[in-house]
């Protein structure tokens, strides 16, 4: 595995982190290099979002049963809207920072903070959830790591991974884009082979329809399934992160994003349909009571839901024997890459929020030797470790398990992590849709090389703008998922809002101490910043177009003629 050190530029167009001198010669403030190619941009996103199905499949099958494919379809439609929104925003404002930056720009400081704080929750959960499932997949080959039979081993290795990833990020190393590309390519090839053989030789449409009819869940379980299905589509922040380092992002991002969105959607839909309508290559073992069970029941139970893709792959005719050996390894690597993006991403967002006067300046403190944001890295990896302990402790101690069963209706550790993941994602995505609508109306002069389809022309403050219908549909969908999460997830409905309230308290204390407006925003020159963003991105034609738009707008406002 090759590693590289990288620098990260701020959403506010200033350099954030510096690379150790011995790595970049004598450049004390190294700017982020735009070296990511279209495939690099695709694989960057894929290595993050592509890992989600390894986590989501078993959880959704366990909740939505025979309606799992419909749950994935509902969440998938919302995800397509989210993907299109991120593509438009990342191509228009190609800076790192993602949802937090878009919301800050569109809705102001306080909402930018709330969205960023929700994203931070997601990143910390990403770390704990993905290390947890990484060990689950490893347990397919090493049974001593099973979360059911050997919970301490499982917990200890997951905790070790979190500490190790944090240490690597403090030193300032990260997996290379080439490595991401290799793993992504291998995974796409592997998943295409599994699905092709599965659909050609084992899929039975009659069985699919029969399973849907006899195993349709209750309304509550269906809603829970939908809210868990969104877990399979979280990680689109990576699109905007990739935008920061991609050559000509306004042109490349839309092209690669559409392929990424469709690929992830198809894999999720295909796995869920296959799990409901596939004749297995080997006999499925009976359940704990000795009753025969269907494939989806076996994949969705507490023992197997953390490694469902590997078990499904092993049931594919002909290819299954080989898949049983390498899919757990491939899944583990993808999940670890995704967990690493959580460690890296949380520190980056916290640093950016700190620089943007949304969080205390201590989160912007960098290590004197490695020049990485050590406080943010340790703080948010520490939170991830706490979340892991909270999720694992019922399996480690029977007394605590009894308390959990009483208080949380027996939700498992994996459920707890998935609950919070769904809550954080639904909250931040809801704000992103509103921010997109606000930016369309109040920043119509920024050139948009990619726009979400189906728009209504409107005039706002004398400027022509377009109202995005798809953003409204997406908002309704993601808000419904947020409500489903609050209604059906016992821990999520307490811990999620509690996290937001904690953040808002920190925000108010910090802003009050520094005489910053509590509810209003700090004044910023967005036009000047946009010119800088486009210049740094190498999008000089768009920069010229933007400047021309501003001049034309100023002339219109002054009542003069424009030539």
């Amino acid at each position, binding site marked *: 595995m090759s590693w590289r050190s990288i620098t990260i530029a701020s959403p506010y167009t200033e350099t954030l982190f510096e690379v150790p001198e011995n790595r970049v010669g004598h450049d004390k403030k190294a700017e982020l290099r735009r070296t990511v190619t279209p495939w690099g941009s695709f694989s960057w996103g894929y290595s993050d979002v592509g890992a989600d199905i390894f986590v989501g499949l078993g959880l959704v099958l366990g909740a939505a049963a025979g309606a799992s*494919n*419909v749950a994935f*379809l509902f969440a998938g439609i919302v995800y397509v809207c989210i993907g299109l929104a991120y593509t438009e925003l990342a191509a228009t404002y190609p800076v790192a920072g993602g949802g937090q930056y878009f919301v800050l720009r569109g809705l102001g400081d306080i909402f930018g903070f709330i969205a960023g704080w929700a994203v931070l929750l997601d990143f910390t959960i990403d770390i704990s959830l993905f290390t947890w499932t990484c060990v689950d997949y490893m347990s397919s080959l090493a049974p001593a790591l099973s979360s059911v039979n050997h919970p301490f081993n499982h917990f200890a290795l997951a905790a070790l991974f979190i500490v190790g990833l944090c240490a690597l990020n403090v030193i300032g190393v990260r997996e290379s884009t080439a490595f991401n590309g290799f793993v992504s390519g291998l995974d*796409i*090839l592997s998943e*295409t082979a599994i*699905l*092709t053989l599965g*659909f*050609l030789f084992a*899929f039975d*449409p*009659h069985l*699919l*329809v029969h399973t*849907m*009819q006899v195993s349709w869940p209750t309304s509550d379980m269906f809603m829970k399934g939908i809210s868990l299905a969104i877990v399979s589509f979280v990680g689109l922040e990576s699109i905007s992160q990739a935008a920061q380092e991609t050559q000509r992002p306004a042109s490349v991002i839309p*092209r690669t994003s*559409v*392929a990424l969105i*469709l*690929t992830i*959607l*198809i894999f999720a*839909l*295909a796995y*869920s*349909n296959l799990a409901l*309508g596939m004749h297995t290559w080997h006999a499925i073992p009976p359940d704990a009571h000795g009753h025969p069970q269907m494939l989806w029941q076996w994949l969705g139970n507490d023992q197997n839901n953390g490694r469902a893709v590997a078990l499904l792959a092993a049931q594919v005719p002909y290819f299954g024997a080989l898949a049983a050996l390498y899919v757990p390894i491939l899944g583990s690597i993808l999940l670890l890459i995704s967990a690493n993006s959580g460690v890296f991403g949380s520190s980056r967002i916290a640093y950016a929020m700190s620089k943007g006067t949304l969080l205390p300046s201590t989160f912007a403190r960098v290590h004197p030797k490695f020049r990485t944001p050590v406080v943010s890295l340790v703080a948010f990896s520490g939170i991830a470790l706490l979340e892991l302990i909270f999720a694992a402790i019922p399996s480690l101690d029977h007394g605590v398990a009894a308390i959990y069963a009483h208080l949380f209706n027996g939700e498992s550790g994996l459920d707890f992590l998935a609950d919070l993941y769904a809550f954080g994602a639904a909250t931040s995505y809801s704000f992103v849709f509103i921010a997109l609508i606000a930016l369309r109306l109040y920043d119509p002069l920024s050139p948009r090389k990619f726009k979400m389809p189906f728009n209504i022309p409107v005039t706002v403050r004398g400027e022509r703008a377009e109202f995005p219908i798809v953003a409204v549909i997406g908002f309704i969908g993601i808000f419904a998922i947020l409500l489903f999460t609050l209604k059906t997830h016992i821990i999520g409905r307490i811990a999620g809002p509690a996290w937001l309230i904690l953040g808002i308290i920190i925000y108010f204390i910090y802003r009050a101490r520094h005489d910053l407006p509590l509810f209003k925003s700090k004044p910023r020159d967005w036009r000047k910043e946009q010119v800088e963003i486009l210049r740094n991105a190498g999008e000089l034609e768009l920069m010229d177009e933007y400047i021309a738009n501003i001049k034309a707008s100023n002339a219109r406002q002054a009542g003069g003629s424009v030539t």
Partner: protein
Amino acid sequence: MIILRIVLASLLVVIGCSIIVRMLGLGIHPDIFPGVLLGGAMVALGIHRIALIRRVYAQRKMAQ
């Protein structure tokens, strides 16, 4: 590499069409909807990828 990508994209179109045909073979009712949509998405992605490959290939040819 480009041949592998073309094969993968073509495979998606073929599998997508096969799923649509097999699902429609069960008659028209709501339960076939997720399967038909999956097939449709596979065909759409396959065609999107083939179009991308063609565009990139044409650009390379022009550059040569």
